[in-house]
């Protein structure tokens, strides 16, 4: 058993690893992350997860529900730390898994992966309490600076189980933590009203040519193969300074999360029922409306934006004609909110006509993704949401202090 496997085993039982091992781990993680672009390319199948916030026992529940690493390919959209009591164990375990299985684990940065925020919301205090010094916090913050800002998922299928005809028209499936199907939604015919609305909003751009470099004309309406566009994953949302995925690739990300600018917005913004852009009540990032998402998705050949960042009581929430989804993976958030959590599973397109990475994601190149069809909105990938509840704290023989939630008494 390698040292790394030993560390994984120790962390899985919710016991922190010694400081020198943390240092070594963070060093190796940084070497790995420095090679990743700002926008990592991930190929389906993949399970996309939202905020964890140090709720270690619920992270274990997530792995139980979603499958273990490396059997399942995971993409975590940030906010690993703060608020919960086990930020340290949660983040270090994810980091160990990243180092051990780099191709099966993608970690992108959340707004809490920041020096400033972690000193206010708990991670700093936790490191101090568990190690007696801020060293481990510093090592972790150095890793935060190297985390990618987003990911592009390619090759997602428009059906949930290829080869199984009865699932062919299922666009959305919701399962409980035992895997039983709670609900199923068939794909809507293209001429339905929501679809019309989508088309309308896209009329302004319909006569444009395809994305830079593709040479595709906007009027092409090929319908064979390529059923879905790519999926952009980002912690918060869009930025008025970012109109293409390529612009994200140009950011110098290896720094503390700034108070403003594109990098800040990607980690802080929220979709909202407004037109255009609005001020965020969080004091950082922006609010953005359906029109912004639709234009962005169209311009970048995206069928969906997956993001986290906002507590949603049902674990996930699709907005704007399913052009953006919030995934939240911290059940009973802060041991107080009473919400359920969810992960989003995208299956692999096995038809051979799916989307393949067309560029290596280098700066200055196109966002990768699909060549056809153009014109209308892309069909969304088929989505399976696995919904789960908070793990009983004492259920796994792990150390667990009784959660004490804040109230005004």
């Amino acid at each position, binding site marked *: 058993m390698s040292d790394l496997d030993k560390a994984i085993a120790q962390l899985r039982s919710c016991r922190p690893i010694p400081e020198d091992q943390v240092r070594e781990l963070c060093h190796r993680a940084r070497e790995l992350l420095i090679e990743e672009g700002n926008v990592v390319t991930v190929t389906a199948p993949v399970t996309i997860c939202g905020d964890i916030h140090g709720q270690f026992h619920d992270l274990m529940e997530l792995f139980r529900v979603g499958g273990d690493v490396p059997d399942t390919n995971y993409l975590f959209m940030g906010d690993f730390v703060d608020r919960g009591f086990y930020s340290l164990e949660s983040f270090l375990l994810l980091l160990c898994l990243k180092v051990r299985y780099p191709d099966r684990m993608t970690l992108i940065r959340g707004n809490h992966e920041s020096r400033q925020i972690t000193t206010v919301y*708990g991670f700093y205090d936790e490191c101090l309490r568990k190690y007696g010094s801020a060293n481990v916090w510093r090592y972790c913050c150095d890793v935060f600076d190297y985390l990618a800002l987003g990911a592009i998922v390619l090759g997602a299928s428009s059906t949930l189980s290829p080869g199984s005809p009865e699932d062919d028209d299922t666009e959305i499936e919701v399962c409980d933590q035992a895997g039983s199907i709670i609900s199923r939604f068939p794909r809507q015919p293209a001429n339905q009203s929501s679809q019309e609305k989508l088309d309308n909003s896209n009329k302004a751009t319909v006569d444009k040519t395809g994305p830079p470099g593709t040479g595709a004309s906007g009027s092409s309406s090929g319908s064979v193969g390529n059923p879905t566009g790519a999926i952009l994953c980002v912690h918060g949302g869009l930025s008025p300074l970012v109109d293409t995925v390529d612009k994200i690739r140009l950011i110098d990300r290896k720094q503390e999360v700034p108070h403003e600018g594109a990098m800040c917005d990607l980690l802080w913004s929220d979709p909202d029922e407004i037109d255009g852009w609005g001020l965020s009540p969080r004091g950082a990032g922006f609010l953005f409306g359906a029109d912004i998402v639709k234009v962005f998705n169209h311009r970048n050949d995206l069928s969906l934006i997956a993001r986290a960042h906002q*507590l949603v009581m049902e674990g996930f929430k699709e907005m704007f004609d399913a052009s953006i989804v919030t995934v939240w993976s911290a059940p*009973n958030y802060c041991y*107080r*909110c*009473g919400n359920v959590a969810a992960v989003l599973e995208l299956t692999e397109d096995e038809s051979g006509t799916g989307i393949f990475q067309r560029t290596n994601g280098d700066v200055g190149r196109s966002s990768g993704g699909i060549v056809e069809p153009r014109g209308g909105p892309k069909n969304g990938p088929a989505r399976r949401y696995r919904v789960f509840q908070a793990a009983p704290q004492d259920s796994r023989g792990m150390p667990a202090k009784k959660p*004490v*939630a804040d109230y*005004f*008494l």
Partner: protein
Amino acid sequence: MSAPSIPNLLSLRARGGRGRSRGRGQGRGGFGTGAEAPASRGQAHDSVIQGTDTDAAVSRLSAVDTGYLSDPYARYFVSAFDGPPARRFPIINRGTYTRTAAIDNLVHSFLAGTGGEEQQREVTRQIVSLGAGTDTRPFRLFSQKGYPQLVYHEIDFSVTSAKKLKTVEAVPPLASILTNRSTGDTGSWSSLPLNGEYFCHGLDIRRLSPAATEILPGLRTDVPTLILSECCLCYLSQEESEGVLEYFSSRIPNISVVIYEPIHLGDPFSDTMVSNLAARNIHMPSLERRRDEADEAARLKRLGFETTRQLTIDRLWSKWVDAEEKERVDRLEGLDEIEEWQLLAGHYAVVWSFRGDGFEGWRGIE
């Protein structure tokens, strides 16, 4: 909180190191008794409720130290023995701030009335604070000028009221406000500050009911009176809490009540709150029924209060805190999660209800 700790407190002006437990919510409460009988279950619960007052004091100091509230007296009520004062999460600080600002607004409007200054000086008003614990409001009010004559009562466990006296005696800035003190039985004491009278009753408020023979020394029945319950009545059974309100409403013609407490909205957050509190041995009978605004108004009407208004802390923040002040508070600490704030703050409400004259200052407040 005993006297020897007091001098140390002054050295803690600078915000203490971060760390320590950021702590639990803030507490308030108490409906004390002088007779500390051997631990029955009820008595055990009483001491848990007493403990919530310590939480309240720590939360108040956290909100003061981070700049949300201005309260020079808050630090005198937090023990230095436990190390540097805990700093609460921003969401808790904002809640402490909003609740304090909202109740201050109601209290000040009540005291100010509508009359001119000349007229005000001749009017006496009375406040009765239930389960007051270490509340600093009397110090803040009696140190301000321009208010009418004020009779202020605080009622709490005798152990709590006795402790409050000790603190006041040991801290000159407090002693200089509540001057001319005299001590009574079971932790009760009183003072004759400038501008009025102050009474601290060491008494179990559950003894107060319409039929009670209990007489609160100094209680006036002839002046407009505000009963204040900041997370106090919620710990009593419905029968007990209604008895307390009726005790006052049946004796005082011009009467009002301001209640701040959590509300059950029949959703998962509410259920989680009940079970989390139960894990801390805190039982709130008021959370047993789903809270409807109309029901609450009807209940208070039955108890003798005619006009009732209610706003959640979430709404109070939106409606009562002006834009400039919001900006100031926002700048103190970022509040990272709006949904969480709306969820938490949406489950606490301030209710104000009144009958008779003397509440002109509340007209137009919604």
